């Protein structure tokens, strides 16, 4: 375990940034987001970023390949960004878990090399949540905000930052930072206890997820409650795009006038044109689209992934859904049905 007095936080950032690209959650435009560190940038006071840390590994859009067109000649063009090592600091436990979920999708066969490259390049420094919000329910998925994981886990206690490497990559990072000093983990234990005292009080943290498994798949799928739950869904992509685990994308071509840029961009299963096929769509109304999103997170994903849910309880969709419909309400309503 290493430590650093918080007043020197910016020195730490500067030291990290000197080695490789550093991203920290900072305030911009009235909200927190992961930004490339520049001198003097302040760590946000917000609990979490508006968009998740997923963006750094799976950006909203990225070019896949290009075609140059001249007259009737077409040539292929490599547009892949080779990438460079980077550190992301201040990832919360929920977002850290989201990488496990994304890994299962993108790193299983066939491997998504774009994601793979970024994961290999990125070192994740997590930060324990000292002040969780009422919308937090990571506990329901077995996540401990006091033990945030990542390559390096960090805690803030009083005027001190504590860092602990969990992986080799994390070890390498910490050992390259001479301004850190060694320490024991007693202070961290205190902070963890304080955090647990708060998580005990979190109203949604004990969300009951019994019955959300492959065995009850059809039961959930055919639950008549879906109609009511989805009736006021606008069909926007807010929940999807703020979600740290949503990983659907579309591949599109952009005609530049000189050629074509083939790129991928996030897609949302809430959209009416999601996975549109020649015959149209197989989810004709918002009810089916809505059901898909929550079934995927709560039933399909765990039944195919050793019981790991496709949700990390970060609470972003709870805060951001325009009509305040969210996975907690869905889980509670469906859960009543299976009891």
């Amino acid at each position, binding site marked *: 375990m290493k430590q650093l007095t918080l007043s020197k936080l910016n020195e730490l950032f500067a030291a990290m940034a000197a080695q490789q690209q550093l991203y920290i959650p900072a305030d911009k435009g009235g909200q927190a987001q992961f930004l490339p560190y520049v001198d003097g940038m302040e760590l946000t006071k917000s609990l979490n970023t508006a968009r998740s840390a997923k963006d750094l590994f799976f950006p909203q859009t990225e070019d896949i390949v290009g075609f140059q067109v001249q007259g009737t000649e077409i040539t292929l063009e490599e547009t892949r960004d080779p990438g460079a090592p980077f550190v992301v600091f201040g990832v919360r436990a929920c977002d850290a878990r989201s990488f496990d979920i994304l890994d299962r999708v993108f790193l299983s066969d066939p491997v998504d090399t774009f994601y793979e490259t970024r994961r290999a390049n990125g070192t994740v420094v997590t930060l324990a949540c000292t002040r969780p919000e009422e919308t937090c329910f990571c506990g329901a998925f077995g996540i401990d905000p006091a033990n945030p994981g990542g390559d390096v886990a960090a805690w803030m206690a009083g005027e001190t930052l504590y860092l602990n490497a969990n992986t080799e990559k994390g070890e390498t990072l910490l050992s390259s930072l001479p301004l850190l000093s060694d320490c024991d983990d007693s202070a961290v234990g205190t902070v963890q206890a304080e955090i647990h005292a708060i998580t005990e009080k979190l109203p949604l943290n004990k969300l009951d997820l019994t019955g959300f498994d492959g065995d009850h798949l059809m039961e959930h799928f055919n639950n008549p409650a879906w109609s009511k739950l989805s009736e006021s869904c606008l069909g926007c992509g807010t929940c999807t795009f703020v979600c740290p685990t949503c990983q659907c994308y579309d591949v599109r071509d952009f005609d530049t006038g000189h050629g074509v840029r083939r790129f991928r961009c996030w897609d949302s299963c809430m959209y009416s044109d999601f996975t549109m096929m020649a015959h149209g769509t197989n989810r*004709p109304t918002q009810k089916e689209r809505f059901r898909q999103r929550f079934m995927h997170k709560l039933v399909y994903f765990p039944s195919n992934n050793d019981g790991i849910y496709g949700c990390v309880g970060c609470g972003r969709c709870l805060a951001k859904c325009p009509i305040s419909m969210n996975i907690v309400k869905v889980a509670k309503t469906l859960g009543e049905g299976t009891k």
Partner: protein
Amino acid sequence: MQRIGVFVCWCGTNIAATVDVKAVAEALGKEPGVVFATDYQYMCSQAGQDMIRDAIKEHNLGGVVICSCSPRMHETTFRKTAEKAGLNPYMVEIANIREQCSWIHKDMPTATEKAVILGRAAIAKVHLNAPLTAGESPVTKRALVIGGGIAGIQTALDIADAGFPVDIVEKKPTIGGKMTQIDKTFPTLDCAACILTPKMVEAAQNENIRIFSYSEVDSVKGFVGNFHATIRRKARYVKEDVCTGCGLCTEKCPQKKVPNEFNLGLDNRRAIYIPFAQAVPKVATIDPNYCTMLKSGKCGVCAKVCTAGAIDYKQKDEFIEEDYGAIVVATGFNPIKLDRYDEYAYSQSPDVVTSLEFERLMNAAGPTAGTLLRPSDGEHPHTLVFVQCVGSRETRDCGKPYCSKICCMYTAKHAMLCREKYPDTEVYVFYIDVRTPGKNFDEFYRRAVEEYGVHYIKGMVGKVVPENGKLKVQASDLLSNEQIHIDADMVILAAAIEPDESARSIATMLTASMDTNDFFTEAHPKLRPVESPTAGIFLSGVCQGPKDIPETVAQAGAAASKVIGLLAKDHLMCNPCVAEANELMCNGCSSCEKVCPYGAITYSDKEFPGPNRTRVLRRVASVNPAVCQGCGACTVACPSGAMDLKGFSTSQIMAEVDAICK
């Protein structure tokens, strides 16, 4: 992707001198989809057209791009060529590399580069062209003529002679127009009334002609072949079908102080009046501005004296609705108001008159019974000064920039007639130029000078000052470069002519375009001079531009023949480039309907397949392709893009934008 053929025209040297046509053909030949590209001296020639036709067949072309002159020039030509080769005519696009390239650029590389880009834009567009088929709409076999002057009468007579019913709408109580006020006509000096009044009677008696006198067109809706007009028959307070035209009422009416507009206010008429003896229809009209009965309810003399019982003080405006296939505008002209030409003392002295007033003073049916007398004192004038171009060819704001065309000739006529009838007069004509292009015109003018001794002086009159019963005329002689002072008894001003003030509102009603002087514009200044750009609207007489009587009659006949040609058809091919609503995307919000100038868009509730085999009822727009003229206002008003314009679709225009900007 279409198989596209590109044809680059040299237009002789018009294009080839500044654009490297071979290079253009070569560059465009490499564009995606282009399977054939060539160049030729004159694409519009028979040989050029044959070349296109053969290429379409040989290379199985699905689209054709012609890089040539403006599409306004030869688009139709090339469309027909394509059609002959079995290709849909709307699969042709023109890249304008003459007017918009070779003619404005001097440098060959620049012009060539631009020509290639314009060609690319046309290729990009033609890729998205779809074969279009023109729809058909029926033709109402009746014509409307607005204006009952010689232009309107002649047009109506010619149309009626071909067997089609025609209605004349004249705002005055009688047809005849300006020609009724004219004494003699140049250059033959025959009597205007003698040649006009038989035509008026002929029109009145023709079974195919209906005359709505003292009427105005209130509104016109519809489109070529299918106009619907509302005609307002203004209350004349006399039953037209009962009045015998005996004229007793016009003698007994106690209201005698009404300025007689037929004589341009040079004398008075009664409140009930027949404009002149040969009026058609010969029916009395009560002037509501002066009739004591209508104004105060006290009088009723005319009703008492009318043995036929034709007077009806309670008459109201009547509205007639009628369908027409074609509309002829023959709204004529007026001399301009001279209140901004005070240097000629028109408002100060009654002896300064306009030429039209002078016509009345010379006319046997005029206020002086044909004897030329000074309006101020009724004395015989000895010295007369004619001033030409009063308000014509005027670069200042107060006048008209154009030549009124008829003034030179009628002034020569007036001067000649004056000298002939009254050899004791001295007649001076001040002119800028004397313009006499016309059959026997110059001979006529020379006669005035040489045989009748009219003094023609090149120069402008600077000022006319009424003084001691004389008009002191100060002028300059530009040839001798001298100042001239003439003590005249009368000054006659050749006032410019301008379109009738009703013309603008009629143009708006008909959606016909006008120039800045309010003359109607023709569809093509040389090749379609009697048609308005708005289909089904034809132009007759001075409403299109200044002209004399024979030209007016010729144009009237030409307009009539165009109308006859139109009415002879049972169906019309519609413009296929019209808006079309995609019902699947339309949400029925009515935005498009609100901006459509033709009322071409209607809505209906329709059932559509919904999700999960349901049926949903939706309000959707549909466009009547016969009514739509293809402006595209609706396409922008429509937020969803459900409304698109065939031939100028959103994707086509964007493709052109892309091709130009890349």
